[in-house]
């Protein structure tokens, strides 16, 4: 086939008819410099405002400014939205916007047959084609026959638009940089979305650069108008995706990083503590440092950009010792550096929260790609017997809930709590029913109350927590340290029996927390059956969709999603025993599955994936079918 570049002069003769669909997956792909992340997040905003449920997946290269036109410089933003509950960013694309040949070649395989491909034909020039690895121009070949292709000279269209705007002083380069807004305008039209939120956002973003704001808005509106007024190829439809039936309430979009930061702030408030967030820049955890540093409006939050990961965790320990809530955040390699410090917090029984936004590893690994391979590290990764609490968030909104819970457990039990998120959850967003902080039950922490007959390692009979007496407290003078200490008095002790007692106490204190966290529920399905698919963290979406699909087919399987990684929920072993088989999909080489096998001596099976990308629903469905007596 020879693809005709759409002639902009072809005026629409018939009114737009919109085809109603339940859900759609759209991916914007372009150079790092093409503004795909902004385009995607603006489309997300418009989609959320239109009332759809949605899940996004931003994916960008580790290089800040990768060379133009290269395949490794391609940045993408994917969104799955619909009128039904959306649980994943989607396996197959319905619409792919490719701004250059590199974006096309790296993303085309995800486009479903008959999917809509929008390309900027002006970028399909020799140099770009060569850089992407094309010998010939794919727009002039038959390879794209199985898709519906809309090849537009977006450069020319954008230039024509902007040149028509009176009185702006801009360079051609600046004009071409608005191509993404033109493409966004067209996709907004395609799904019948409003350009107003983006127009407003552009006005604010470029408040000081009026001309730039003007040309971006012009490009956005021109893209939209192009859809509205031009007779597109006969096989390109406009769509309508009706609003989803979400629970009543006030909603916003939230990313995982925001969820965690706001949850920490809320947790500190409920504990009535000032918070000090100590961190060292690392992808993908830096966002949390930025968000908290920006919360200057009287929240009692102080941020401390430490000289390294070790200083970050130890400053957090020092802050907690001083009577504040010490928090540190990082990603796997940084957590590795913090290990010794975390051991000190365990030994001295000081409350800190450690957030790990996991990424691909080992070593530097895949800094901008997602993985959930730090479960071993979280549960076991310290010298000696060194138990702490490990929680995992399953979605951006859940990050808020789990961050509040992390603060509650840390301060109530005087223990470090590790909260696991990952690159996917941290960066992706979902509509979130905004909670009411005013209605939440406080869990006030005391840092300056000296109990009767005070000794630094005396313990609360129920929680086994020691008292938190910060320096400066009258009548509470004492000393603590990393050397093993005598039970109760806390004086240095090398006594063998005492070390056994203290090791047992540290383990028991954490194990007891299983009685203070919810029993494991069945996320989807019944409490018994042929197969339980057990997940944790960001596999929540794809497992949920796969289980729903298979249950619709009549299979007896359930989805069990674990937030409490350590200690594990007290009923989990009994619950899992009710299923004939247990399958554990994880974005690692099989870590939770090892824990389950060790703890419950069950024949849990692993479904590992470490490609740096989230699971596709079909991958989980296919694996599950084998256990359900089908071969795929």
């Amino acid at each position, binding site marked *: 086939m020879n693809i005709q570049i759409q002639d902009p002069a072809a005026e629409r003769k018939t009114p737009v008819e919109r085809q109603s669909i339940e859900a759609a997956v759209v991916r914007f792909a372009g150079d790092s410099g093409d503004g795909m992340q902004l385009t995607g997040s603006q489309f997300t905003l418009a989609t959320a405002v239109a009332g759809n449920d949605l899940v996004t997946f931003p994916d960008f290269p580790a290089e800040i400014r990768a060379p133009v036109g290269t395949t490794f410089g391609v940045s993408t933003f994917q969104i799955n939205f619909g009128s039904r509950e959306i649980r994943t960013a989607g396996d197959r694309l319905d619409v792919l916007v490719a701004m250059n040949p590199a974006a096309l070649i790296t993303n085309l395989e995800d486009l479903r047959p008959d999917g809509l491909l929008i390309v900027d034909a002006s970028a399909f020039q020799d140099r770009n084609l060569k850089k992407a690895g094309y010998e010939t121009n794919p727009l002039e070949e038959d390879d794209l026959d199985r898709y519906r292709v809309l090849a537009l000279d977006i450069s020319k269209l954008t230039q024509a638009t902007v040149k028509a705007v009176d009185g702006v002083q801009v360079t051609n380069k600046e004009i071409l940089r608005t191509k993404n807004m033109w493409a966004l305008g067209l996709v907004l039209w395609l799904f019948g979305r409003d350009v107003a939120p983006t127009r407003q956002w552009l006005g604010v973003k470029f408040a000081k650069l009026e001309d730039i704001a003007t040309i971006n808005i012009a490009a956005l509106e021109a893209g939209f108008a192009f859809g509205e007024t031009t007779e597109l190829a006969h096989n390109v439809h406009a769509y309508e995706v009706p609003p989803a039936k979400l629970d009543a309430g006030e909603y*916003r979009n939230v990313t995982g990083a925001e969820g965690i930061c706001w949850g920490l702030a809320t947790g500190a408030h409920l504990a009535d503590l000032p918070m*000090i967030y100590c961190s060292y820049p690392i992808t993908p955890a830096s966002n949390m440092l930025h968000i908290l540093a920006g919360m200057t409006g009287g929240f*009692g939050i102080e941020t*401390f950009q430490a*000289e390294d990961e070790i200083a970050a965790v130890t400053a957090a320990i020092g*802050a907690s010792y001083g009577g504040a809530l010490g928090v540190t955040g990082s990603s796997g390699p940084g957590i590795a550096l913090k290990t010794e410090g975390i051991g*000190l917090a365990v030994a001295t029984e000081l409350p800190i929260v450690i957030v790990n936004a996991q990424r691909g590893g080992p070593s530097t690994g895949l800094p901008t790609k997602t993985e959930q391979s730090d479960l071993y590290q979280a549960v076991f990764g310290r010298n000696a017997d060194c138990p702490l609490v490990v929680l995992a968030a399953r979605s951006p909104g859940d990050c808020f809930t789990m961050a509040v819970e992390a603060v509650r457990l840390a301060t109530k039990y005087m223990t470090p709590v590790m909260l696991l998120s990952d690159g996917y959850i941290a960066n992706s967003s979902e509509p979130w029913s905004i909670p009411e902080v005013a209605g939440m039950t406080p869990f006030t922490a005391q840092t300056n109350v000296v109990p009767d007959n005070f000794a630094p390692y005396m313990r609360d009979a129920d929680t086994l927590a020691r008292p938190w007496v910060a320096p*400066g407290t009258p009548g509470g003078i004492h000393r603590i340290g990393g050397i093993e200490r005598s039970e109760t008095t806390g004086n*240095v002790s090398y006594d063998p029996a005492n070390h056994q007692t203290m090791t047992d106490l540290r383990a028991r204190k954490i194990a007891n927390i299983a009685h203070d966290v919810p029993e494991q529920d069945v996320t989807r399905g019944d409490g018994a059956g042929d197969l339980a698919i057990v997940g944790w963290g960001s596999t929540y979406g794809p497992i949920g969709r796969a289980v729903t699909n298979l249950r619709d087919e009549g299979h007896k399987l359930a989805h069990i999603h674990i937030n409490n990684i350590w200690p594990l929920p007290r009923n989990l072993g009994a619950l899992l025993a009710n299923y004939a088989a247990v399958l554990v999909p994880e974005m690692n080489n099989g870590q939770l599955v090892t824990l389950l096998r060790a703890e419950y001596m069950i024949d849990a099976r692993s479904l590992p994936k470490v490609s740096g990308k989230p699971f596709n629903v079909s991958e989980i469905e296919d694996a599950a079918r084998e256990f359900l007596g089908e071969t795929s």
Partner: protein
Amino acid sequence: MNVVPELKPDDYATDQEVRWCPGCGDYAILKAMRKVLSDVGADPEQTVFISGIGCAARFPYYMETYGFHTIHGRAAAIATGTKLANPDLDIWLVSGDGDSLSIGGNHLMHLLRRDIDLTYLLFNNEIYGLTKGQASPTSRPGTVTPSSPSGSYDRPAHAVAFALGSGAGFIARSYDVAQPHLVATMKRAREHRGTSFVEILQNCIVYNADIFADVTDKKVAGDAQIHLEHGAPLVFGKDGDKGLIFDVKTLSLKAVALGEGGVAEKDLLVHDETNAVLAGLLGAMDGHALPMALGVIYCAPERPAHRPAHPDRPRGDAMAALLDAHLRKGHTWHVA
């Protein structure tokens, strides 16, 4: 703050048995420390000793104040967190040469440049004591130890130069058995706002005995030491008959004998502790060609603090309202 009853030095002692080797310089420093707190009337409940790992790091167990014996090299970072959490505390950081300049060098550097308001005592004995006598970052080249049987190869790190290079605002030096001098120096350090860095030469009697004897021994002290006093001429010598001048040709300090070649006291350099260039020159003197400088080597003029005090926060309902408003900032929408 509480009204603190008058406390004697011994009132700052804990009931813990002190476990340094008999004859260790640490005993003298401990004694001086208790006297400092007694002299200034320090409130034990507002005083915190934070240490890393090493012989010196046992210090907090022996002070009847708050104390935190942490991990190797990290005391500076921990103390930073504690000070951020409670700026009212009087924090003393006790560390050795390995703790400060090897494993903890990075943290010390950043503590100094941040100028966190606490007093940092570096007990320099030029050896690893607790781990049984290996060469330390301040050991002189050729130091024979179990880890350097042919003599250590590396040039030593220099505490004062390191501190100066890291942007420290207060740098002083004293030594363990110089009791009145050590007490006075630590008091000055405590008064200073910002990180006050004090190098204390400390005799490790077991693994590096008398390493500083060529400076501290009474017989040589007069000529091997110069006691700095802000605004006073740089005079030294056991009879006060020597002084320092600045040699413009070599851009360096030079010792001269007073009266010789017509040199009078008015020709000598006058100590200006606010002069960082002079501090560098004085700090580098090692007691051999030139006398070792003791006392306040550098005290920066008032420097602006950029980090604001820990932000105030409303409590209870007011904070909940603030958070609720924050969660609703930006685009929100209602689902009926």
